[in-house]
């Protein structure tokens, strides 16, 4: 029985390796098994993980060279990322939890957040957005007529779009 699960595990690991390689290669522009460190977040997230910025920084520290070169090598990235996937770390956020988060911010319980409120929270609380990130979110989230975001609808729309 132990050997069965070993075999299973091997197959799973092999599968992870292929996924990781594919994602990595998308950003390996010169086909020399390195990617720019600034793309690591995108790669990790596209593999199904949802780390915070802080967790991301820790991961990067693990895969970086001892003297950071600005590039991450595949050889260092693969084992670390495989472990992350095996341990199912940084799981994505379920829809209902996301909804509750919005509701927390919606102190007046209106069912929507005004543009100003959204900006305030996203740029001052948590792990603040950059201006670019904020603008991008606003462009899709804010209803220009009411200048507010109906977060329930927004979540539904985003989730559908993803799938």
């Amino acid at each position, binding site marked *: 029985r132990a050997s069965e699960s070993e075999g299973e595990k091997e197959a799973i690991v092999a599968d992870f390796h292929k996924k990781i390689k594919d*994602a990595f290669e998308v950003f390996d522009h*010169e086909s020399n098994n390195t990617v720019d460190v600034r793309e690591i977040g995108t790669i990790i997230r596209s593999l199904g993980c949802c780390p915070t910025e802080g967790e991301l920084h820790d991961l990067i520290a693990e895969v970086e060279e001892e003297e950071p070169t600005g590039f991450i090598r595949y050889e260092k990235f693969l084992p670390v990322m495989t472990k992350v996937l095996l341990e199912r770390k940084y799981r994505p*956020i379920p829809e209902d939890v996301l909804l509750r988060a919005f509701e*927390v*911010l919606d102190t007046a319980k209106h069912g929507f957040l005004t543009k100003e409120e959204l900006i305030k929270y996203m740029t001052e609380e948590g792990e603040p*957005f950059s201006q670019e990130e904020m603008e991008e*979110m606003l462009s899709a989230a804010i209803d220009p007529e009411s200048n507010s975001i109906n977060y329930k609808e927004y979540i539904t729309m985003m989730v559908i779009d993803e799938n």
Partner: protein
Amino acid sequence: MGSSTSAPHRFAFQNAEHAFKAAALIQRWYRRYMARLEMRRRCTWSIFQSIEYAGQQDQVKLHDFFSYLVDHFTPRNHNERDFLNRMFTEERFAQDSEMEKSSDFESIEVPDSYTGPRLSFPLLPDQATALVEAFRLKQQLHARYVLNLLYETRKHLAQLPNINRVSTCYSEEITVCGDLHGQLDDLIFIFYKNGLPSPERAYVFNGDFVDRGKESVEILMVLFAFMLVYPKEFHLNRGNHEDHMVNLRYGFTKEVLHKYKTHGKKILRTLQDVFCWLPLATLVDEKVLVLHGGISDRTDLEFLAKLDRHKIVSTLRCKMRKESTKQEEEKKTANQPSSAQEPTPWFLPQSRSLPSTPFHLRPDKAHRAGRSCSIPCPGALDRQELSRHARRSVDLELERCRQQAGFPGIKESEEPSPLASGPDPESGELLEPTQEEWRQVVDILWSDPMAQEGCKANTVRGGGCYFGPDVTQQLLERYSLQLLIRSHECKPEGYEFCHNRKVLTIFSASNYYEVGSNRGAYVKLGPSLTPHIVQYQANKGTHLLTMRQRISRVEESALRALRKKLFAHSSDLLDEFKKHDADKTGIISLSDWAAAVESVLHLGLPWRMLRPQLVNSSTDNMLEYKTWLESLAKEQLSRENIQSSLLEKLYRNRSNLETIFRIIDSDHSGFISLDEFRQTWKLFSSHMNIDISDDCICDLARSIDFNKDGQIDINEFLEAFRLVEQSCSEGRDSACPQSTDTSDGGPSSPDPH
């Protein structure tokens, strides 16, 4: 310090904590969402790029093959000779027929009903400006003025050096623009945003003005007009698309013939000449080098400055001067050994080592094969030895093709080479470039930078090199330069620095692959020569879309193109899938699917990432491959009367076919005979390993409704493809042959909107 005051504090603190956590959660989720979008965008980009480059490779392969055929094929009789002559002879304007040229346009009458712009020479600035305005209003310039303008352009270009020199002393700022590819909107936008050319506002346009976009003619007219009006301030560099052979495939030839039905051929002939006279590079303040593609470790600016650029008609074909053996010997010792690897022509054995079995060498062949192209010449080996060996295997290959195509075997006749498409060199006329000249020009027009050090053959494009930061450094040092500006590659942001900011890629055709796919950019240089980049996207619509919507649109377009490609390889894919299905269950794993698809298509795409978009019929990570292939076919086919496998093969080679047609139809009449079509198809299909019987070709011909007089209307034939394409994307209805519009071909060109 009573508890009554701490409770509200505690409450507030908890609230704040909640808000903090909630915000962090939302941000975390959002960043993941954006990352996935970014991944999709990158994948989409690779799809477009890989399809584009694969097409370019094909193009080069095709022409290499034809070149070889020209050099080695010995037609046995008049008919064969004529046929091949027509296929392969490049039409060249003889240098001395000035008279002929001037009467080319003077005799053309412009009717009073013509409301477009009228030009008079010498051209004045407002005439150039008026041209821009006229084209913006979708007017078309009359053929007479086109030819007149081209005539004046040629005269002007012929007295320019290969490398133009510009200085910021005279015009304070210089604007460098990259590829435009027939996208007039972008050019108009640049002039609008940056200002029209003037003595104070110099411009350098860095090649690839034509092909793919639909207004290449108009772009050329505007660029040439401004060049004539401001000769000191307005400069053009040649790109790899300023080449009539490339134009055959990528749409410019088609555009000209469509817009100018009577005089199109004349215009094309004249353009062929004009393109050869375009300068190769521009040097700004002796410090910034601007050229279209890139460099190689052999790039020699002094050599480039001295060669006769007019001799290089097309960078796709190189014909060497026929030299006596003595001259070849001398040349061999004079030539420096190449450090960059030359791409091996695809029809030679892949390995660089020589074939071991000795073949019969026909003595006459060896002699005649003194001229050839694209044969790699590694310095170490004896050059003649290598050539002989290489040619032996090619002979064998050629013989096989000939036999398959139904041509009789070659007799060892004393017939001299019939296809001397250039004049006899012994008579003193040297109209062909040397191998070195050709290579130097190909390098600067086709090469791409890479991150690794070194210099290697650019196998993706099929011509030029990949050059590393060390090569750049070397060149900049050797000529005391500080920056290399090039174009040639589409970039999402319209520009990109590399090699330690020593190389700048600038690309000015926005939305190149699809609406929303990329920005365009241009770069301004002042006296300090600090590059200042301006980006734009010449399409109002995209600003209103969110990034998500933009990415989705582009992605859909890319996936459509990719599915077409997959369909075109259905038989090969089926074979490959079966290899992974030893037990004949009809099912394979998705992992195997990815491996199989890559081994057939060779596009280097991240198939696992793309899989969810291409395969939606899998369960438990397993796929019923036959069903999947059928669903692909359903998308692409609508007419059951055309055999699907035949269609698939033709479809795959559509661009090649079209190019071949246009080559055969050298007088651009739009007609070729059924016989010529069959012969060409046989030759072509035998070499491409396509297995189609003569009967099938005839059936196909009948079903596409050829004229009964045995002539094939090229346009009709190609319409048939577009029909299938169109009706597939529309869904069901069989469109009747008359009701198609004239959208350009090519897998990734967007519909006009």
